[in-house]
């Protein structure tokens, strides 16, 4: 019983940040139809800028709780700079090309951003541990958890709900859905597709950077973050169904829980359990859990 609850909570904590990254990836895929390999780099950049922001913020005598806002602001700033720059400055030149070529373009971008982060922040690790103690400790049974981890779960749920409501219940969200369903028709009906592309891409970048920013206090921020995160979010998006928010949520849970299961019960499988689940899922449901028709949904 104790073990089961430990696995469940560890899995949920893991799933929370994975969801935030993956939902950004799925949004970009849904709207722009790009499987963005550089998505992990946005996560890494988010972690670095947040580490910087935390360093500056907590060196003064500012209210500790507002440090979370500083982290969000850092992620937002990174997204506002990078999103439009990359979408307008790079990706749009390849829209008329094959899907495969676009994947390769983002692969090239991944390589460039990998080195760019190293050039800007160096190779030594950064630590941003201050926010990690903001919420104290929580006891579940005999186990002691860090409150911040539960805050992350809440954040993921909040982001999921906001995105879902934003897309399905607001006018601009419905415009985005229209672009997803039929780019040409919505353009003919007067939708500024270019604007939607820039905004959707920027939000996707923001979500990745936000996930990076809020995991920064839990980890040491150093090179190599992007490479693992992008594959994890790929797995989530593929399991959940490309372009589906509900799918991303459930798939994050599946991935998070299977990782926790492996860590506690079969440590030798930890490194590849996600890909095993992904391969099995693809064998059973090739289109993912939430992608029933040929139409791409979000």
């Amino acid at each position, binding site marked *: 019983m104790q073990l089961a609850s430990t696995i469940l909570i560890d899995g949920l904590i893991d799933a929370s940040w994975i969801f935030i990254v993956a939902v950004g990836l799925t949004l970009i895929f849904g709207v722009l139809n790009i*499987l963005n*390999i550089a998505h992990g780099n946005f996560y890494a950049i988010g972690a670095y800028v947040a580490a910087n922001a935390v360093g500056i913020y907590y060196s003064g005598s500012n209210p500790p709780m507002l440090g979370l806002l500083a982290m969000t602001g850092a992620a937002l700033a990174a997204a506002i700079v990078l999103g439009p720059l990359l979408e307008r400055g*790079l990706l749009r*030149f*390849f829209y008329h*090309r094959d*899907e*495969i*070529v676009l*994947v*390769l*373009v983002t*692969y*090239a*971008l*991944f*390589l*460039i951003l*990998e*080195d*760019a982060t*190293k*050039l800007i922040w160096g190779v030594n690790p950064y630590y941003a541990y201050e926010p990690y103690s903001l919420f104290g400790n929580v006891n579940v049974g005999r186990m002691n958890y860090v409150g911040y981890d539960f805050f992350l779960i809440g954040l993921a749920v909040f982001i999921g709900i906001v995105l879902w409501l934003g897309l399905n219940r607001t006018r601009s969200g419905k415009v985005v859905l229209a672009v997803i369903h039929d780019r040409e028709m919505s353009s003919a009906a007067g939708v500024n597709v270019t604007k939607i592309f820039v905004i959707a891409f920027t939000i996707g970048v923001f979500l990745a950077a936000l996930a990076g920013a809020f995991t920064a206090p839990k980890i040491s921020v150093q090179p190599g973050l992007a*490479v693992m995160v992008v*594959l994890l979010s*790929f*797995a989530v998006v*593929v399991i959940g169904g*490309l372009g589906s928010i509900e799918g991303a949520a459930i798939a994050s849970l599946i991935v998070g829980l299977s990782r926790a299961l492996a860590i506690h019960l079969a440590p*030798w*499988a930890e*490194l*590849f*359990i996600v*890909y*095993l689940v*992904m*391969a099995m899922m*693809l*064998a059973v449901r*090739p*289109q993912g859990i939430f992608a029933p028709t040929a139409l791409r949904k979000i």
Partner: protein
Amino acid sequence: MSSRYAIPLLAALTLVILVVLGKLLPAWCVFLLVTAFAKGLAALGLVLIIRSGLLSFGQGLFYCAGGYGAGLFMLWGGVHDAALLVLAGGLVALVLGAVIAPLLAGYRSIFFATLTLALSMLAHGALTKADFLGGSDGLNLRPPSFIGFQPANSTESVYALYVFACILVVVFSLACRVHFNSVRGLLSLAVRDNEIRVEYLGSSVRRVISENFTAAAFLGGIGGALNAIAVAHIDPELAFWTTSGEFVFVAILSGYLSVAAVFASSIALEFIRSFSSQYFPNAWQMSLGIFMLASILFLPNGIGGLLQRRKKRMKGNKPA
């Protein structure tokens, strides 16, 4: 000269030129060519898959399988002959490919790519944890012999390896060239254009895809084995997704029209990597990325498309 003999003659001539060239080039350059050829062979396999309109992001799996196949054959089986080792590597990958191919043949586009990616990452994870195979450090191999010839020093060894690699490249390029022009080879292009039409004509799309995938696995294995012998080391990174990404890049850069272009692209990539890691050690990935972007932007049909265009122009200029 009839066109029937033109291609084999051209292949023989290429082999002679390459072998002579190896004597003239400095040793580092010759070694670089060997690794470029190894990667080129794996990318050539990928081109077979791309011809039927699919993209595998897991070619590294077979590159790795070939490397481990050859490596373990050497370490556990005590075999040191390069030809046998490469054959063993190729066969291991072939068997693996033949097992996976029917499973994959039903998938298309991004799902095919991601499933192959998942399988290669699965192998990467499993190998990293397999301590009896050296874990994440991998295993070191011993220097090979070449059909009875044991090189006396490192210069001889590199040259022997180079000649061996040239033979592999020319033989498999020739095989692929012949295959591309055959009915089965052209069927792949038909699958790319319209699967339903191919089915109505009485051919099996699944079979075409399975065969291409298995052949690609074999070539990946040959390339992996050659690479393993050349660098005398195998590790799980061979199956990591970035390795597969390089093959994808080489295959896209070369296009699916020309065999020679595959090796030209592979050589270009190896040289750029080598030079940029020497001159910009902190930004070699960045230079590689910029090179990729530039080539995608300015060579939309790949290097092969460039060659094809030239050929067409030359044909067009001929008097009727």
